């Protein structure tokens, strides 16, 4: 990928006169903005939010299959509910006290992605819980009469809410005063959706292999390839359009980690492995290992993508010149 200028070369709002560029003054090079206080827990929250949303989409599109995808749907619904239930707990480790989560349920504020996002999470948990209950009632783990808890519209509803939970985590970052995140107002949300779905496909493939449901794996891997390719295209366009604002993300140690874990190991390698799986008929045990490896790589790449977004946001906040002249 192309190298973007280092912060020293960046010319946020520099004044050019007679071919000479006067650098923008700063206050002793001190940051103007405050860096996010977000650590592993928020990164994990964003990562799992993406997977959870992606699983919502998977349990819907599986409906279009001419074959029987009951097992995939059941796995997706149970897993999505577990993730939805785990997410508030992870958020609470960040907030400090459980009741602090409830403070967010006092109001609905459409101007705050975090507010609408929390409500999206709450409703998603409800929809996923209803769909999971139906699945478990059908196979007899729960009382059979409970299968009526989730009427047919719950499937597209969970998908819709899932699409929202996978999207808002991106909007939550980009709709801030952070120059890097702001410069990605179009790319970060779309990237979050793609990465979330790719990770959801990877997790579903992995679980399907463990369950012995091998027939569905090629379909999941194909969808994973589409999502992964879209993610790469968005990343490339982001680097081109954001320019110096995205330097903390694409350059230096941080950029190296993104390239190694998210782009090469997390997207290109699983793409190659999945293409191999589609092209060559491998013996079953070998194929299972291939799927497992591809899935783990995709999931790692997805986590590192979120980590890179957060960490690059911290670096960006420390650059006063990027903050003085915000991207639009």
């Amino acid at each position, binding site marked *: 990928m192309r190298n973007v200028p280092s912060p020293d070369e960046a010319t946020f709002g520099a004044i050019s006169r007679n071919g000479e560029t006067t650098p923008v*003054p700063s206050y002793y090079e001190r940051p103007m903005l405050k860096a996010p206080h977000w650590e592993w827990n928020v990164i994990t929250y964003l990562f799992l939010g993406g997977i959870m949303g992606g699983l919502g989409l998977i349990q819907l599109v599986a409906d279009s299959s001419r074959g029987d*995808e009951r097992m995939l749907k059941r796995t997706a619904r149970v897993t999505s509910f577990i993730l939805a239930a785990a997410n508030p707990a992870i958020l609470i480790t960040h907030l400090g006290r459980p009741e602090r989560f409830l403070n967010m349920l006092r109001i609905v504020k459409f101007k705050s*992605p975090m507010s609408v996002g929390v409500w999206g999470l709450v409703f998603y948990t409800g929809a996923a819980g209803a769909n999971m209950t139906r699945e478990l009632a059908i196979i007899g783990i729960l009382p059979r009469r409970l299968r009526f808890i989730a009427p047919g519209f719950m499937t597209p509803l969970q998908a819709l809410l899932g699409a929202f939970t*996978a999207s808002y985590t991106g909007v939550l970052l*980009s*709709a801030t005063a952070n120059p890097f995140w702001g410069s990605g107002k179009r*790319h970060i949300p*779309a990237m979050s959706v793609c990465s979330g779905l790719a990770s959801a496909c990877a997790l579903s493939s992995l679980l399907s292999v463990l369950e012995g449901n091998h027939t569905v794996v090629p379909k999941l891997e194909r*969808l994973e390839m589409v999502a992964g390719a879209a993610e790469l295209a968005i990343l490339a366009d982001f680097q081109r359009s954001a320019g110096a604002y995205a330097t903390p993300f694409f350059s230096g140690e941080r950029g190296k980690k993104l390239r190694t874990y998210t782009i090469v190991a997390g997207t290109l390698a699983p793409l190659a492995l999945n293409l191999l799986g589609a092209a060559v008929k491998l013996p079953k045990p070998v194929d299972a290992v291939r799927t497992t490896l591809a899935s783990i790589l995709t999931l790692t790449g997805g986590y590192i993508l979120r980590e890179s977004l957060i960490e690059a946001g911290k670096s960006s906040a420390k650059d006063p010149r990027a903050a003085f*002249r915000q991207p639009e």
Partner: protein
Amino acid sequence: MATGFFTDTTLCIGCKACEVACKQWNELPSDGFEFTGNSYDNTSELSGTTWRHVAFIEQMTLEEDGLHDRWLMSSDVCKHCTNAGCLEACPTGAIIRNEFDSVFIQPDVCNGCGYCVVSCPFGVVDLIEKFDPQGHHYNLASLVTSRREEERTALAGHGGVAGKCTLCYDRQTLGFTPACAKACPTESIQFGNVEELRERARERVETLAGRGVSAQLYGADDVGGGIGPLNAFFLLTDRPEAYNLPAQPVLPSTRQRAGYTSAAIAVLGLAIAGWVIFRNA
């Protein structure tokens, strides 16, 4: 009535009486001493526990007729924006606009999520660190609204909450001038009705121009980016960046629409792809 601050930096003498008065009145703890070497500024920035910060800008330029030096001082504070990024971002409703049109954080509602911190275009709000077991009331911005001992105890020991200037809400309700403006010996910090202050500020710019001093107002009118005018605005004699103020700030919520739109396109594309893949495979 909308009240606010007009900070006239040409009158500031860098005495830091505003910083001290703010800390004393609001019972804000020391942030520790760190020598920066940046002129006389060891406070460095506004924070959850520092709600006034005096910037010292020492400039020296060598020109044909000799060395020119200029020493700018400016007391920075929360801007109490017309459209406040922190207020819009707050998911709990802890950040409200009070009857004085100031942006106010209710510490007992704040859950410490930190979203306001990244949503302030001026880098003002910050989380107050966790409670210090040594007995310093580190997380107690609540003392601004409540000085009751039991409330101190109720909030003590828990994670941080967001803190910033309240425009001395408590003093205002009693009819008092905010602590910083009260303590300012040169009237560099003027408190009052925002409309009147703006009028006064414009006159001041003209007076200064008559004396050959070129000055500009920052935030008396719309600062752009959807933020609107600021209830706490400044008179500056250099570019805003020299004072660590943004020349082109943006209200974060204006970035939402683009985000949701592009995410929706991605969702639609992937859903169709998924549908086709599962149907045909």
